Each structure stands twice: as C-alpha cells, then as structure tokens.
C-alpha cells in the first residue's frame, strides 16, 4: 500500500520540486547564500510553518465542505417552507373566492331575484373584491342571465351573454352541483392570467369546500365523470360564475421573502408562467416549460400528490448566476411554485467563514513565521557559533574557546570541543617546552667538546702534529655542523612561536655569498662541482639578519651540492626587483630537478621529495623549512622553480626594509652611502680541483 502511495507521490513531488526549487533559488539568491534549499535553517522554518498552517487549512477545508452542505440544505428547507406557505395561501385564496361566491349565491332571494336585482348585488360584492373581473349568473340552461364586468376601475353591466351550456364551468356546478375551479387562461394579450370559479346555487356537498381533497373531483378532467354527485334529489340549479384574476397570487409572490435576491414564481400544470415578481414576464406569457426545474416539476406531477419533492438543483438563472431552485406542487390546483435563490447568497455564510479563516490563517502564519524564525535562530545560532569555534581551533588557534550560552546537547558538544582544544594546546606547549629543553641540553655538552678541541688545537698545552691538527680540525668541523643543526632547530621553534628576533644589519650580499662559497670550498672541490657567484657589484647593501641569511644561503648551496651529479654547475645569483622594493637571491643548479608535486611539499616540515625509488632526499627534511621560516621572518618569500632532468633554481625574495635595529655587531651606518660599497670581484669562480 505504501509502495503504491510512494509510486504515485514521488513523481509528483519530484516534478514539483524541480519546478519550485529553481524559482526558490532565484528568490533566495537575493537574500544571500545562506538561504539554500538544503540549508537547515530553511528546512526548519518550512517545517514549523507548514506544521502550523497545514492543519489549519485542512480544518478550514473540512469545515467549509460540511457547512456548505448544511447551508444548502437549510436554504432548500427555507425555500420549501416559503413555497408551502405560498401554496397554502393560494389554496386559501381560491377557497375564499369560492366561499364568497357561495355566500352570494346562498343569499336569501338571490336566486329568486330578478336579474336586475342580482346585478346590483353582484356589483356591491365586486366593488369590495378587485380580483373579481367578471361575475355572471347562469341559468339552468347554461345561458348567462346577468353579467357584470370590470373594466379598469368601473363596473359595467354587460349584455354579451355567452352560452356556456357545454362548458365545464357551467356543467360542473350546473349539472353535477359541484363547485368548479378552472384552469388558468390568458383572456387577451394585455390581460394577465385568469381563471373561472363557479358555484352552484344548490351545492351538493355540505362539507368544507376549501378542503383540498374535495377539489380533487373538480380538477380531474373526468370525462367519464368519476366524481359522482351524491344521490338524492337532482335539481338543476342556477350557477354563479366568476372570472378571477390572479392579483392576489401575484401579491403573495411579491410578498414572498426569499433571502435578499431570491424570488418565487408560479407556473400552471403546463408550465406557463402564472406569477412572477416581474409582472411583465407574466404578461409576456412566458413559457417556463423548458426550464430544467419546471421540467422536473412537470415530470414529477405523476408523483404522489401533496408531498413536495424535496430535491433541489442548482441551475443557471436568467442572469447566468447559479440559483438554488426548488419546486413545490400545490395539491389540488396542481400549480407549481418555484422558489429560487442565488447560490452565492445561500452559501454566503460559508464564504464569510472561508474568508475569515483565510485571514486567520495568514495571521497565524505570520505569528508562526515570527516565532518560528526566532526559534530556529535560537537553535541555529549556537550551532553556528559552534561551527565557527571548531573551525578556529581546527586551523590552529588552539587558544580559542567556544563561548556561547547554549542549551543541553549543544553545550555538551561545545564543552567537549573546548576540552579537546585545551589538551591540544597543552600538548603543543609541552612539545615546545620539550624542544627548548632538549636543544639547550644538547648545546651544553657540545660547547664542551668544541671548547676542548679548540684549546688543544691552539697548542696551548703542547705541540700538535699536522696529522693531529687534521683530526682535531675534522672533529671541530663535525661539532660545528652539529651545533649549527641544533641552532637551526632552536631558531625554528622560536620562529614558529614568533619569538625570534630578527636582528637587522646592513651587509653586502656579494660578500655573504663569497663567504658561503669559501666555507664550503673543500666540499665543492671534492665533489668536483663548479660553483659561480653571479652578483652585480652595484647591488645595494641589504638590511637583514646576516647570520640567518648566511645559514639560509649555506643550506641552499649544500642542497645544490647534494642533489647534483659530479661535474654539475651551481650558481649563486642576486638581483634587484624592477621597482627596487626587494632583492631576489637565487641558487641555481643544473642537476636532476624536482617534480611538480613536490615543489611546495619540500618546504613543509619533514616534507621530502621522495620518489618510489628514494632518488631524492633532503637530509632531515628540516633544512628548507628552516629557510622558509627565516625568510618569512624577514617578510620575504622563498620558492623554487624546477624542471625534472634540467635543473632547479631556489629563489629568496627579501624586501628592502626601512627601519633598522641597531645590533651590536653592526659597525656600519645604514644609509644610501652604503650602496655601491661592493667588494672587489664581480664574479668569482671556484672550480673543483681533481684529486
């Protein structure tokens, strides 16, 4: 089942996401990179808002549907009530007319009176009842004897007697002694609908003629005469006939209140419009037989009488708006009452409710957004601080501690990170302390060694043979090399902490280079390599830590010696940068070169260019690291350019610096005069002699 759901919904949500996400990205892009669809913040906010709004929407939807139905039912009921009432009143009205006629007819001496007298009585009555358009007395032969006609507001005695002997309006009361209520007809173009009501002068029923059921006999056009007059003394009597307008019915229809825009209308059993709030439509003899609701009424005529059909439909009204229409049959008369009401009106309360709930939903949504946003921020802020803090620690700032007022789980996490940072910090500190201790402890005995050797060499305690001198010198050199290594280690540690003082003094690079080469002369000779110094005499003096730069140069030169085959060429070079802001030293060789991936690695601590066959190795791996730190302590830069198989060149860029710290070793005055005071010998070459 869930599978089926998933199969249906996944393509849907995917499609939705594919369409929505880009739009969202575009919109979110304006608000900064932090608003990505994947961001936790956005997801949380969406969750919060949706969880608030969706239930509301659902509830509102359900309520809407329910109330719609019940409102429709209520409206229909109300409309049916109206129809019933109208129906009852119409029936009552017809009954009243009949009663009136009967009253007239039963008046003492009415039937026996002369036509003139009858006429007078009729006139009196007709004055009081404007819906009586015409009253006539019919003789037992069906001929009109007396006839009073209303024209406009005046009553006239008419003489155009009509022979109604064959007409039902005479035959029913005249022959069968039953009151008659005729179908509605339209007398002439400009007159509204009218009907004939006639009563016998000697009614056969004693009962209540206004009873709908007793009309039954009258209304059924029984050709066979299924309504049998009671047995008894059959007497042909006179008939009092009245032509009645539907004025009263119209009044009823007008008075009907069906909401604000609803209305009631009446149709006859054939679907002709009998009454309508807009009179003209009745005068226009509108046929309503083809309207759906009337059709239903007409079709439903064969149904049980007396019961309203109860069904309702929404139809398109005359103005095109949907109306709730019900029809109701007037029992006995058979007329249909149509009560219509605009759907919108009927459902008015629903719309109001829906609008209100939308408004509330928006307000609540706003509130949720507001509170949700602060909630989300409350959660995400510490998270972001955590993220920042961890990043700081991760990139080496071990002193940083994550400080934030967070709750529970996040706080625990932060505490753990802080603890970790602490132990890292103490670890690195103890490492540093250790290094310092070791270095100092190493230097002491070494000083002892070197001191003794020097003393003996100086022949202070006795003569020394050349051989002995040679050995002592070897020993001293080894010792000094070791000392230099130790010193480098110590200085590196200091530089990493930023504690090394760079003591600047002015010196000539050319001079320094020459010194380097001299000191390594023996080695150069033995390795049979050719070292040259290509430094222009015009190179200005530089202010830097002479000792450090000497060590850097020596290191680079030694590396060059080590990593070149016998007979290779090495060159020490220096030049000014075009804008005179710095000096660029370099040590060039035509040795094996260094492959690309190692060009930066070799400067890292213990970073060595080690191929699979261990072809390249740079001592302890610390030499270049020392160089890098020393150079950078001057604000300079060190790098290498190399091609495998062709050679390498190590560059050192030293900025010409303005401030000079007076160091005790410096005996020179810094200044422009120092420039150009170059040592003799632009280029010196030292060739390795062959043993």
């Amino acid at each position, binding site marked *: 089942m869930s599978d089926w759901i998933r199969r249906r919904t996944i393509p849907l949500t995917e499609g939705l996401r594919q369409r929505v996400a880009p739009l969202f990205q575009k919109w979110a892009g304006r608000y900064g990179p932090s608003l990505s669809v994947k961001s936790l913040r956005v997801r949380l906010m969406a969750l919060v808002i949706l969880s608030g709004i969706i239930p509301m929407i659902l509830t509102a939807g359900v309520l809407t549907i329910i109330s719609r139905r019940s409102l429709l039912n209520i409206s229909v009921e109300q409309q049916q009530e109206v129809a019933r009432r109208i129906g009852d009143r119409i029936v009552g009205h017809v009954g009243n007319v009949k009663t009136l006629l009967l009253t007239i007819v039963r008046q003492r001496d009415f039937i026996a009176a002369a036509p003139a007298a009858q006429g007078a009585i009729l006139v009196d009555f007709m004055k009081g009842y404007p819906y009586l358009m015409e009253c006539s007395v019919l003789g037992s032969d069906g001929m009109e004897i007396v006839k009073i006609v209303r024209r406009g507001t005046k009553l006239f005695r008419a003489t155009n007697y009509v022979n109604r002997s064959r007409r039902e309006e005479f035959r029913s009361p005249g022959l069968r002694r039953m009151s008659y209520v005729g179908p509605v007809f339209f007398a002439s173009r400009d007159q509204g609908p009218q009907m004939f009501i006639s009563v016998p002068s000697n009614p056969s029923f004693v009962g209540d003629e206004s009873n709908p059921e007793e009309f039954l006999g009258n209304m059924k056009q029984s050709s066979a005469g299924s309504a049998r007059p009671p047995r008894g003394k059959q007497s042909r009597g006179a008939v009092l006939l009245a032509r009645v307008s539907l004025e009263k019915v119209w009044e009823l229809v007008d008075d009907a209140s069906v909401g604000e825009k609803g209305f009631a209308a009446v149709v006859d059993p054939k679907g002709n419009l009998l009454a309508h709030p807009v009179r003209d439509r009745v005068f226009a003899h509108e046929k309503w037989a083809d309207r759906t609701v009337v059709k239903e009424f007409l079709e439903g005529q064969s149904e049980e009488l007396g019961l309203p059909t109860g069904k309702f439909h929404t139809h398109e009204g005359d103005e095109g708006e949907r109306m709730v229409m019900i029809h109701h049959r007037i029992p006995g008369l058979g007329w249909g009452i149509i009560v219509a009401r605009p759907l919108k009106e009927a459902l008015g309360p629903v719309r109001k409710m829906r609008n209100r709930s939308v408004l509330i939903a928006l307000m609540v949504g706003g509130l949720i957004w507001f509170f949700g946003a602060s909630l989300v921020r409350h959660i995400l802020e510490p998270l972001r601080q955590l993220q920042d803090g961890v990043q700081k620690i991760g990139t080496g700032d071990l002193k940083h501690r994550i400080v934030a007022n967070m709750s529970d789980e996040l706080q625990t996490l932060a505490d753990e990170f802080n603890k970790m940072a602490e132990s890292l910090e103490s670890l690195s500190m103890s490492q540093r302390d250790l290094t310092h201790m070791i270095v100092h402890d190493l230097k002491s005995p070494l000083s002892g060694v070197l001191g003794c050797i020097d003393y003996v060499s100086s022949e202070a305690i006795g003569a020394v043979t050349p051989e002995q001198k040679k050995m002592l010198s070897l020993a001293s050199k080894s010792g000094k090399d070791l000392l230099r290594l130790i010193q480098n280690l110590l200085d590196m540690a200091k530089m990493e902490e930023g504690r090394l003082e760079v003591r600047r003094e002015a010196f000539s690079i050319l001079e320094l280079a020459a010194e380097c080469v001299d000191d390594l002369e023996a080695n150069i000779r033995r*390795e049979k390599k050719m070292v040259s110094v290509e430094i222009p005499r015009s190179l200005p003096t530089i202010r830097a830590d002479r000792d450090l730069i000497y060590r850097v140069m020596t290191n680079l030169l030694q590396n060059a010696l080590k990593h070149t*085959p*016998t007979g290779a060429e090495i060159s020490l070079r220096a030049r000014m940068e075009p804008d005179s802001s710095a000096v660029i030293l370099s040590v060039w060789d035509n040795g094996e070169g260094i492959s690309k991936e190692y060009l930066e690695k070799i400067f890292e601590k213990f970073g060595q260019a080690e191929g699979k066959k*261990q072809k390249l190795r740079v001592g302890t791996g610390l030499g270049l690291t020392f160089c890098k730190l020393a150079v950078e302590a001057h604000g300079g830069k060190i790098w290498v350019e190399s091609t495998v198989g062709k050679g390498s060149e190590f560059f050192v860029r030293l900025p010409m610096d303005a401030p000079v710290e007076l160091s005790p070793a410096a005996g020179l005055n810094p200044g422009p005069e120092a420039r150009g005071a170059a040592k003799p010998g632009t280029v010196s070459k030292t060739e390795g002699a062959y043993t």
Partner: protein
Amino acid sequence: MSNKKILVVDDEHNIADLLMVVLTGAGYTVRAAYNGVEGLREVQSFQPNLVILDVNMPQLDGWGVLSSIRATEATRKLPVLMCTQRDLISDVERAEMLGASGYIAKPFEIDRVLHKVQQMLSAPA
C-alpha cells in the same frame, strides 16, 4: 697490509674524511665518493677490495648502490660494509637481505671499524 683498496661512499664529508685518515693511517689505499652515483663509478674505476657504504645519501642511496654492486657479475662477491642507523632493525635485516657482507651502526667507534674492515678483507673469497 698488502695494499688493499677501500672505497668510502658517504655524503657527509666529515665522516668520509675521518674514515680516509684513519684507514690510510692503517695502511690501506682509500678513496671517497660523496654520492651513490659517484660511488658506483668509483667501484668500476678504482676497483676497491672493500666498500664502506652509507645508507642515507641523496640521488641514489646505499641500498641502491648495494643492489647495483650485487647485480654486476664482477662485483657480486665484493665485500660491502653498510653503515646503518643504530636502532633500526629493519636496516639490519635489509642489509642482510640485499647481500651486504657486514654492517656497522652509526655513530661508530674507530676501533670497531678497523676491526671489521680487517675481518672482511681477510675473509675467504
């Protein structure tokens, strides 16, 4: 001593010098090479009776030189003394595996070096 030739291969000039002085003083003819490639060349041209070979050297390290010596027919049985790191067992094992005739750990005592050299040179071929 009959004039035996010893080749010292070590990139540390001081050590090479020391060995040269000591061994020359003991009566041998000594030459030094300061890197592996140079060392191999000297093996061919100098044709020593013994090679003292340092392990850590740039370009071609001691192991490479040793393998090369052993791979060449002429020098298959040439005595080679490896200078290994004191505590590194793997170095010792490697020395044996690659066919070094002996090893001595750095830093070494001069007496021991002389002793070893003598031993190796007088050993049956």
